[in-house]
């Protein structure tokens, strides 16, 4: 069993207007087998948390810590974090020119495992996972994400999740831009991998609809860079009914009460 522990994390970014703090003290502990949902309005810092865990160079950690089984994640480079078992399913996967999916998947798998996968098993695994996610076979020969639709890109992210088998998966708004069918396919993929009991999942979402397919054990509500409230699955139900209004800072809300 593994533990991903985030303690009092403060993160800022450089903007044209100067340094802007985004996360203002976030603490969170995820264990293998748990699914945590992070919900919140736009601009609350959800995606910043995801990118910071993965090590995106745009974000500066001012204080706090992230550890994986006691190891200092913040001291690791981006690729070291991935090899340590962290996986970020990106909100906006980039197109990588000149690199076919086949080549990319095999190179990544080799890097993650420290040895090339056995060709026979690997080809079979890739084919199976692609079929289950309803990804056309010809994608394997196409360049990474090049010309893929929004939904196709997200499915390919989950394909990687299933093939790379991380200790912790961070899903950054994987549900956004998906129609209902694609949402189901993608959710099934996450559930399949999670169901093996060897992964912890951090699900970041703006909407509650993905929580009909992926059941979180814990729900954390992000507001203005902090966790404003947390609870079990019932908190998600309440958010679905009430929205984020009650978390908005007094004075900025236009309730008129």
């Amino acid at each position, binding site marked *: 069993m593994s533990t991903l522990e985030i303690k009092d994390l403060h993160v800022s970014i450089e903007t044209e207007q100067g340094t802007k703090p985004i996360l203002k003290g976030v603490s969170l502990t995820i264990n293998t087998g748990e699914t945590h949902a992070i919900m919140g309005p736009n601009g609350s810092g959800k995606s910043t948390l995801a990118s910071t865990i*993965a*090590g*995106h*160079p745009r974000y500066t950690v001012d204080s706090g810590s992230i550890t994986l089984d006691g190891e200092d994640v913040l001291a690791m*480079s*981006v*690729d070291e*974090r*991935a*090899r340590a078992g962290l*996986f*970020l399913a*990106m909100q906006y*996967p*980039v197109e*990588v*020119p*000149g*690199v*076919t999916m086949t*080549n*990319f998947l095999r*190179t*990544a798998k080799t*890097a*993650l495992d420290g040895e090339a996968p056995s060709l026979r098993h690997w080809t079979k695994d890739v084919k199976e996972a692609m079929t289950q996610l309803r990804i056309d076979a010809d994608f394997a020969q196409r*360049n*990474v994400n090049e010309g893929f639709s929004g939904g196709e890109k997200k499915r390919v992210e989950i394909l*990687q999740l299933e093939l*790379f088998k991380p200790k912790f998966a961070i899903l950054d708004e994987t549900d956004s831009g998906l129609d209902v069918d694609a949402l189901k396919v993608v959710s099934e993929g996450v559930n399949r991998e999670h169901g093996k009991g060897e992964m912890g999942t951090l699900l970041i979402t703006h909407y509650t609809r993905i929580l009909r397919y992926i059941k979180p054990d814990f729900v954390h509500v992000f507001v203005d860079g902090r966790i404003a409230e947390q609870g079990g699955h019932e908190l998600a139900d309440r958010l679905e009914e009430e929205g984020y209004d009650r978390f908005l800072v007094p004075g900025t809300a236009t309730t008129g009460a």
Partner: protein
Amino acid sequence: MAETSQLSTEIAESPSSEAKVAIDGFTEEGENLSPLNTGTEQHGARRHSHGDEPVVPEASRGERLKSYRLADFAPLTGREEDWRFTPLKRLRGLDSKPLTGQGPTVTVTGASNVQVETVDRTDSRFGSAAVPEDRVSAAAWEAVSTATVVTIPEETVADCEVTVSVRGTDNTVAAQHIIIDARRFSRAVVVLDHHGSAVLAQNVEIVVGDGAELTVVSVQEWDDDAVHVSSQQAKLGRDARFKHVVVSLGGDLVRLTPSSFFTAPGSEVEMYGLYFADAGQHLEQRLLVDHAVPNCKSRVTYKGALQGKDAHTVWVGDVLIRKEAEGTDTYEVNRNLVLTDGARSDSVPNLEIETGLIEGAGHASATGRFDDEHLFYLMARGIDEKTARRLVVRGFLNEVIQQIKVPVLEERLTEAVERELAAGNY
């Protein structure tokens, strides 16, 4: 493809602001739309030194001066349309000095059923495919006393590829002439393999006979100080298939002008190019496809990578569809991948269309950077930075390498690209 344009000479990628038209009435000069003329700086590179001077455009690419006589071409100033990107000083006299050097040694190996000769310049095959279109080419034409002729006899399939090794041994300005004569219904792959050190003006004449199928691969793996200016003109007969592949990796200045002239219907041309410029290198390719007869097809794909300070690549793709060339089908594309700051890539596709009765005509050009987001994506999947960069560049250039279809050569060039990457500290 979205970029395909019919009946248009516009360049989609370039802003067409205040083109400097030197002659009244000539408003559709494609090359005038180059970003260079509007003073755009690219990738942190300085503006080109003679970009301020007005360039006198030709009315049409088809009207460019052709002559065997050096005297017909005025001395170069750098303001000529077709020399404006070339740093003339670095030609080391190819355009101005008598080309009296010994020149590189030529060794032909490979197929046993092709004919190899050295002929003197009274041979009737001189001029069977080409007429010089620029001063350096004309200078070389006048200077040579012999030519190497490779003939693939009629209805002969070469039993393996033919390698013409061109090895430079000194830096005196020299001229060279090579003729490749693929007779009717023959099939062959000919590799021009340039290496060593040289200052060379070269004419390569290529005859692709009726129904012949010929691939010519010109590899420039010169030493760092080499200068190479090469005109490679191909004349295609009826129902011929011609594939031309340029691979430019080494040399201080390499300028290739490959041209394909259709003379009878039913022929197809594929022209590929791969170039990788390091710091200080100037790699230029200007190609022409002349659709002068009906129902021919051409496809052009050139890809380049650049790294290091003052690495400069130039790609100019002229496609001419003359009035007679009904049923033409043509598409050309150039892609450049800029790996570091300080490199500069010029890309100018030109399409001149004189008839509306064509199958299709289009062009595309894009110059992109390998950026931090690509790197982040690959590294977030466990791939280290060095491997990530190699993965991208190798993949990008591989599309062209795959076209060569000579396994030994493909392997060698893949390794050469790897070395280029390694030299860039990736």
